[in-house]
């Protein structure tokens, strides 16, 4: 056994048929789940140029080699399709419990094609699947759907992955949730569900991961050791102590807390949304993903009652707090609850609202456009009302449901500069002017602006940091400061991106492996090899990550993306108005030189960013050359 059943469930919603396909070990070894397997399937089966909201789009849901292993930080699965937001490679990972349950129900991936005539949901149990009517679930909030499915199947342990009303209404940044508090937020995968008349996938699996693993006992030992170490390691200790909420205070101190649509880096209300405020006003207890001893998630109370939807994490606090000018953690918690009940990506939703606020303050939108709302920064009630409108596509919400990039093109007159997005997807809450490689990640990421492409700058500034020492195991040399672009930093990027891509392939959470977190490089490799028995080296593992990156790149090139798409919004090439970063400017010319250097390191044409024939062959992607080269070259 090598950590996988090798089974792919294929669901044709148009014809209401299903079949199970068996992968070969040879293919799985090159594409061992997650991002890599999804890329392999999409590149093989999805025709370029399809409308992402048409029946021709293909949804792939894939767990990783290690997903469901009894080891901390291994709950992840990826949902992939052509993105209705970016129009490129769509990819969104989530933790929670759904991925392990799906794996332990006997599957490695699911491929969903076509479109059901009427709303449906899928029910999967221990190797068998059914397509069932979902008319009674359509139009319901996510909590009601989850309760209904558990009640109807008489099993409280069913795990439900679903979109919400936002997905039904094809909001381009509608997401997916499992257990109501874990999210495939980005890239509009919920809208793809909605376009297929697919509301939910309920899963129950009684398998045990150890039965899939080459050395299940070895994995158990690794899992026990890491669980014991969580409280004894500084990084996992901090994640357990504060989750991601510890970021507000240092970002404010560094002048890099995204404020009022990235116009500023300091927020006067920062201490009303930081961890101290969170703990005092809304926090109730920690929560966990499958088998994870860190327990970084937060549960909260709203108006004295514990929310069914979990608590906001840093990204959500930033985007509905400082980024919309709202200094009130209780309002932020309500915004989080609304997005999760409707199933909107909090990042794109908050950023589209802050975009609209900036348009409003500059006269590009008026109260006649906003259904009478005074949509200035800081207006908490208007912000909350806007979430309802977007999810239901009511009034101006119908326009904003398209995302800031499309609205900006419609409004014109300079609104384009207020859409803070890359490849049409809005930025997460990390300020590139304080950590340059995060900006490079936003620019080059195949899915559009994403903060989880590499561990962030700052930990690699001297050779005595834990992060740098772990990075050195991946080949990293020459420490570099956060606020710099140079060839050494591009080499850092090149190596770290492959490692994170591997994480997204085998099923790790970003908070598991080093250099970002506490699981050492050799422990990651031990886990992989105990699962698959292949005795992979770090170099071979990095190659798996690099292969997945290149497939996503090829997907986008087929869709017409070019070097011009690998950039940041104009605003980020200017200085912040005040604070510690006010003298920092990212030079457009230096950014372009660095991009060229990064292309060169990746084995891509330095000018066009197209992978070279030699590179693709070295990655075992010759089959793509035969299929696609005439289109790409």
């Amino acid at each position, binding site marked *: 056994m090598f950590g996988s059943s090798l089974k792919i469930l294929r669901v044709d919603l148009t014809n209401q048929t299903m079949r199970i396909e068996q992968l070969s070990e040879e293919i799985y070894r090159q594409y061992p789940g997650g991002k890599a397997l999804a890329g392999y399937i999409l590149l093989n089966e999805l025709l370029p140029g399809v409308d992402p909201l048409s029946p021709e789009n293909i949804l792939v849901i894939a767990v990783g080699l290690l997903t469901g292993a009894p080891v901390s930080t291994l709950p992840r699965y990826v949902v992939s399709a052509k993105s209705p937001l970016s129009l490129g490679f769509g990819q969104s990972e989530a933790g929670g419990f759904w991925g392990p349950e799906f794996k332990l129900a006997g599957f490695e991936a699911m491929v969903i094609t076509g479109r059901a005539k009427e709303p449906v949901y899928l029910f999967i149990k221990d190797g068998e699947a059914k397509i069932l009517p979902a008319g009674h679930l359509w139009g319901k909030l996510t909590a009601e759907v989850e309760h209904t499915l558990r009640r109807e199947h008489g099993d409280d342990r069913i795990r439900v992955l679903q979109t919400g009303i936002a997905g039904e209404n094809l909001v381009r940044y509608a997401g997916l949730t499992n257990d109501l508090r874990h999210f495939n937020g980005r890239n509009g995968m919920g809208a793809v569900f909605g376009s297929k008349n697919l509301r939910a996938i309920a899963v129950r699996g009684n398998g045990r991961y150890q039965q899939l693993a080459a050395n299940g006992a070895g994995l158990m030992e690794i899992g026990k050791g890491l669980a014991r170490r969580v409280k004894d390691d*500084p*990084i996992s*200790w*901090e*994640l357990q*102590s504060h989750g*991601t909420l*510890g*970021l507000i*205070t*240092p*970002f404010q*101190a*560094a*002048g890099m807390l995204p404020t009022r649509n990235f116009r500023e880096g300091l927020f006067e209300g920062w201490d009303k949304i930081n961890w101290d405020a969170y703990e005092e006003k809304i926090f109730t207890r920690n929560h966990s993903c499958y088998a994870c001893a860190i327990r970084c998630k937060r549960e909260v109370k709203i108006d004295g009652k514990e929310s069914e939807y979990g608590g906001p994490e*840093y990204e959500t606090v930033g985007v509905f707090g400082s980024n919309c000018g709202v200094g009130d953690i209780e309002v932020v918690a309500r915004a989080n609850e609304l997005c999760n009940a409707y199933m909107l990506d909090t990042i794109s939703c908050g950023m589209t609202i802050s975009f609209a606020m900036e348009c409003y303050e500059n006269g590009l939108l008026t109260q006649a456009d906003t259904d009478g709302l005074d949509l200035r920064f800081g207006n908490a009630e208007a912000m909350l009302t806007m979430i309802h409108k977007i999810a239901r596509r009511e009034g101006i919400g119908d326009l904003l449901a398209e995302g800031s990039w499309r609205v900006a093109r419609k409004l014109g007159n300079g609104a384009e500069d207020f859409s803070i997005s890359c490849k049409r997807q809005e930025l*997460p809450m*990390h300020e590139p002017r304080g950590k340059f490689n*995060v900006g490079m990640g936003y620019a080059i990421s195949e899915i559009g602006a994403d*903060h*989880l492409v590499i*561990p*962030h700058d*700052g*930990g690699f*500034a*001297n050779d*005595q*940091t*834990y*992060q740098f020492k772990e990075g050195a195991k991946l080949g990293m040399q020459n420490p570099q400061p956060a606020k710099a672009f140079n060839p050494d930093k591009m080499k850092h990027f090149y190596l770290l991106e492959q490692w994170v891509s591997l994480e997204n392939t085998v099923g790790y959470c*970003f*908070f598991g492996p080093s250099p*970002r977190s506490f699981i050492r490089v050799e422990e990651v490799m031990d886990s992989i090899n105990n699962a698959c028995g292949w005795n992979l080296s770090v170099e071979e593992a990095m190659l798996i990550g690099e292969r997945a990156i290149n497939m996503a790149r090829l997907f986008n090139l087929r869709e017409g993306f070019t070097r011009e798409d690998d950039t940041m919004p104009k605003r980020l090439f200017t200085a912040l108005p005040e604070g*510690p970063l006010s003298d920092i400017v990212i030079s457009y010319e230096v950014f372009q030189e660095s991009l060229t250097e990064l292309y060169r390191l990746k084995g891509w044409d330095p000018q066009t960013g197209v992978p070279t024939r030699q590179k693709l062959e070295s990655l075992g992607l010759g089959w793509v050359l035969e299929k696609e080269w005439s289109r790409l070259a």
Partner: protein
Amino acid sequence: MVSVSVGGYLGFYTPRHQRKFQFAAGEGLAISEIVRQLGLPQAEVALVSLNGDVVEDFSILVREGDELKLFSVTDGG
């Protein structure tokens, strides 16, 4: 007194994981000395804010009434 706070995973290293401290600065106390007395590994101190300004020189002397904030690296997630 100098008001000192630590953030991020630096709190792991301090006695009883405390995050706020008061130091008597006398004629001036180097930031590196405060870092040492708190038991923090200096290499892991990624951000230093002194009275609202970001400083990078650990030999800078802090004075009575100053506010010093020390943070570990601020990574994503």
